[in-house]
């Protein structure tokens, strides 16, 4: 009896086509659709608000933002600029990672983390300076809902940064896919915040 076995040929090679980047793309799309839908409802409410005369006289405005609420524009504009810094630092991390430069990758990711902490701090400062309650009216309820969702997205981005940073510190300097995926998500979050900033803080 022939007991020898013919060895099976090796199976086809599985090619992982940058899964982290793909997931980051999906995460960006989900975040964009989430905030996009909330801004659409926000705009719908604003366009349906009744008209009132401006306090400066003459001009008719939509009675959407209550007269006694002042948006702290310094803090919100600073947030927008901080996002620009976040993007630049995230791209620096990609640049360094491509050159297997662990030190600069870690440094860049640390700065990204710092800017994200600053963003959370700025958002909390905005809440504190505005001094409004979530129960005070339609605008306030929707304001807290949309900005708190954005805050959660920033915290998710912070988690992503921490993950990339830990891997970089641990010596995976060539982990380009993850660093690129992180940068992609940073860009997406920045673009999403830009839309929110324009609709909620600039157009009011």
């Amino acid at each position, binding site marked *: 009896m022939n007991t020898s076995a013919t060895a099976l040929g090796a199976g086809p090679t*599985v090619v992982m086509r940058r899964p982290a980047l793909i997931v980051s793309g999906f995460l960006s799309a989900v975040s964009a659709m*989430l905030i996009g*839908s*909330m801004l659409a409802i926000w705009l719908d409410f604003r366009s349906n608000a009744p008209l009132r005369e401006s306090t400066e006289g003459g001009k008719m405005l939509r009675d959407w933002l209550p007269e006694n609420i002042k948006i702290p524009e310094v803090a919100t504009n600073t947030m927008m600029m901080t996002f620009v810094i976040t993007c630049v630092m995230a791209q620096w991390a990609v640049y360094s990672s491509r050159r297997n430069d662990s030190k600069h990758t870690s440094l860049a990711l640390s700065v990204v983390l710092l800017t994200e902490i600053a963003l959370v701090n700025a958002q909390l400062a905005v809440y504190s300076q505005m001094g409004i309650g979530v129960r005070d009216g339609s605008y306030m309820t929707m304001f807290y809902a949309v900005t708190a969702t954005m805050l959660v997205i920033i915290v998710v981005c912070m988690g992503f940064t921490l993950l990339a940073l830990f891997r970089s510190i641990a010596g995976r300097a060539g982990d380009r896919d993850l660093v690129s995926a992180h940068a992609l998500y940073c860009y997406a979050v920045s673009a999403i915040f830009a839309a929110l900033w324009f609709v909620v803080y600039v157009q009011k």
Partner: protein
Amino acid sequence: MTAIDSSHSATSSSGSIATRSTLLGTIAAYLTASDHKRIGRLLISISAIFAIATAIEGAILGIERISPSSSIVDADIIVQLFSALRFDLIFSVAAPMMLGLAVAVVPMQVGARALAFARSAMFGFYLWLFGVILVGTSYLNNGGPGGGNAEMVDLFLIGLGLVIAGLLLISTSVATTVLASRRAGMTLIETPIFSWSALVASVSMLLTLPVVAGAIIYVAVDHAYERATFGATEGVNAWIGWAFTTPQIFIVAIPTLGVLAQIVATMTRGKQPLRAGLLVGVGLMSTAVIGAVTQSSHTVSFSGSASDVLKSLIPYLFFNHLPILGVFVVLGLSLLALKNERAKLNAAFVPAFLGVGMVLTGMIGGAIFKITNLKLANTVFEEAVLVYVCYGAVLSGIGAVAYFGPRIWGREIPSAPVLGLGLLGFLATVLASLPYFIAGFADQPASIANNFDYSGPIWLWNSLVGAGHALMALVVLLFFAVATKSFRSGTISSATSADLFESVNG
């Protein structure tokens, strides 16, 4: 690529301690599973159990409406049952069943060693399951949309959010597997048609479910604090009701096209004619995404001037008929492939084909529903559309389990029960929905069980619907029993990896 899972064989060992440890081991293995077949199996089995419960809900509602002047169920419960039926059909049955099939089959089809981000998919499964339990608890305590218990309405919104988060995680895993883990040399265009449909469905869910989530966040914050801006409890349905109706429901049915095309393509064992057309057909069905995210009903009215009609007709055709065109393309090409002389009929083809037929009927019904001159709004016609599409997905799921099951579990399932239950399932779907197409034209109101009247045999249509739902519960239960028995102790499958693919190059 035959997979034989022998995990159950060990449970027959003697000794109570050994049995207990094996049982605990099995539970632990399921709790921490990262094997795509195991995760898929969990999703399919639990959505099948929910399908039985949902069909029983439908049967109760049908029976309740037989006599509008008397009621057998409390009025508050009836309101919740109507809402629960819609939620369950989409989020407890059709969506997880289709995603479960994708999780189990896609990695094998694309030649991946594992599901991409399998633990994330497993976490998604638990989020979904926990969310469904929370939603069920809120319904039982008068807390669904329009419910009288405000705390339970909050619980409903949280549960729905968890369900959506879970489905998003699973969809991400499926889509990433198709895009990132294909074997070397397999381009996206060469991806097996079922995997293609799973990719299209997953991406469509990733684009539409966050929009539902956005509305839920607003409604939940408003409901928890202010209860004015979004209409408090009554406003819940107004803001998120679109997620439980057309065209959102078409998205969860996209993989039914993939199941049918996959079975046909491998049955014929030849080159699929115009294969690119199949990919386009599946893609066309995903245009329902545009209709879903815009959250507006694109209706048409054939009264008024020609320019008025044209103005409403173009968006109506675009949003409602383009997905239907996709189904016709896939059906046509599948039937064309069957002309191949080497084609050998597979029992799984019957439920898969009838399932797509039911989905198509529901979609055509959905398009008719949007013609305002017919005055079908707020009638049971819409319920029939929903049941057609979701039960069509269940039928397709039966076909898919019968077809892919031997490749997943390594054991054959007998053809006769599949064929018989497929035909019975078809009958059940028609009975559970067609009478409401007729009653819709006779103005039977939607979501009302008592104190309504119309000229027609009220008892007949509602009895038939109740019987249809009850029959569907029986069909799913019997299929579940047959499948469980077959996959545990049936004959060893001789299915080969070739049975998972269609011929791309002839």
